[in-house]
């Protein structure tokens, strides 16, 4: 079964955002997204200190099936990337919400997360997308 994590905010392009205690945000892709992609074999992460706007390309995830762009869910500066994914890209499949995160942003405006979906809205969004 596909899991939906309750404490996260979701973009229509299937990234999730978690607000950390220090005001930064962590970004990854949802369980629904990783399942649709299949086995992930390569992840291209953004460069540190890169300034990105919401909706900009921030990386690429390649599965056995296809290459898909990763978009910044909100605007900000890249302050960390998950180097574990260089050697173990399959972590995106096995732990999409915890160990398989992609990058952390210092957001321009943390309030921007309100433009994203909450878990209930995202779950409905995924259901509608399938039909």
């Amino acid at each position, binding site marked *: 079964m596909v899991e939906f994590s309750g404490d996260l905010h979701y973009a229509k392009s299937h990234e999730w955002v978690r607000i950390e205690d220090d005001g930064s945000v962590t970004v990854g892709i949802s369980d629904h997204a990783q399942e649709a992609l299949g086995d992930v074999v390569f992840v291209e992460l953004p460069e540190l200190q890169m300034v990105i706007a919401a909706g900009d390309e921030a990386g690429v995830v390649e599965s056995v099936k296809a*290459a898909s762009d990763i978009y910044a869910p909100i605007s900000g500066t890249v302050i960390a990337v998950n180097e574990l994914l260089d050697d173990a890209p399959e972590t995106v499949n096995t732990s999409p919400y915890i160990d398989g995160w992609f990058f952390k942003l210092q957001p321009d405006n943390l309030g921007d997360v309100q433009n994203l979906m909450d878990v209930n809205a995202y779950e409905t969004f995924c259901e509608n997308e399938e039909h």
Partner: protein
Amino acid sequence: MGQRTPIYTLHVDAGAKMVDFGGWDMPIHYGSQLEEHHMVRQDVGICDVSHMTVIDLRGPQAKAYLQHLLANDVERLEVPGKALYSAMLNETGGVLDDLIVYLDGDGYRIVVNCATREKDLAWMSQQTSGFDCQLHERPELAILAIQGPNALAKVSAVVSPERADLIAKLKPFIGAWSGEWFIARTGYTGEKGVEIILPGTDAQNLWQALVASGVRPVGLGARDTLRLEAGMNLYGSDMDESVTPLESNMAVTVSFEGDREFLGRARLEAQLGEGVERELVGLVLLERGVLRAHYPIFSGDQQVGEITSGAFSPTLEHGIGLARITVGADNLTVEIRNKRLPVQRVKLPFVRNGKQVYQLV
């Protein structure tokens, strides 16, 4: 809803992700394409390929007909059950399909691709004109491929002693009858294994017996990465009617011996005379990433071709692909998302019997 093989319900019960494949509902994977790939390289896997088309050829002029129809020469089939890989060409040398033909008593058994079925049958039927022979499609038959270093042992353990004995004696690239089963030491993975052509209910029983004995199902996704690692072409991706076998790494499967008038011969000879301009080669991506079909290949600033099949090789853990490029082009790069990355041309296959074959210089 697409067409369904006799194994359809067993796929669904095993949790397969089903996709449309040439009009058939087929399993792409059962959870993890990578795991299924590794299973075949390291142990054994079973794959339902019943969507492929089986055609039996009979009649006193069956041999003469195939010598006209195929670029390879069935004269090479010297022992009963022997298999031959061949291209079937149109009059201008374009590849209509690739196929396997087995010598079967006085006749032949031919296995062609599923997506090309109607085109092939129409062409093959048209070409029988002037030959005393008949084509019989066998849509009621299923095909199971059991592949991997432990494939022969696993199959032998669940079939009758007579069939186990037959499998033990079969040499590579030979098939033999056992009742209604045709068992052949062929495959599309670069591993040991058998392909068994058999009635649908028998296929269901064999599938279940193998799964009960611990053999896990392998989807068409892993089948594709296995064949690519094995350096084998996929029709529709690596070759089609727009190219000849000489441009498709299939020259060794064309028999020019004697003056046999096979379809497309004149064009191939003319092409040899003019010089073949393009070739299909194996490429390895030297940096991290994945090669995919249609990525352009450059030599310096000049585009010299494109990838025809690409993947992340689960065995080698880097990008590999087949590409059609200008003959002799060197210092190759591939363009991925507007970046040029170095690729090295290698001798195929990439992988044989679980191990890397080529050497990077």
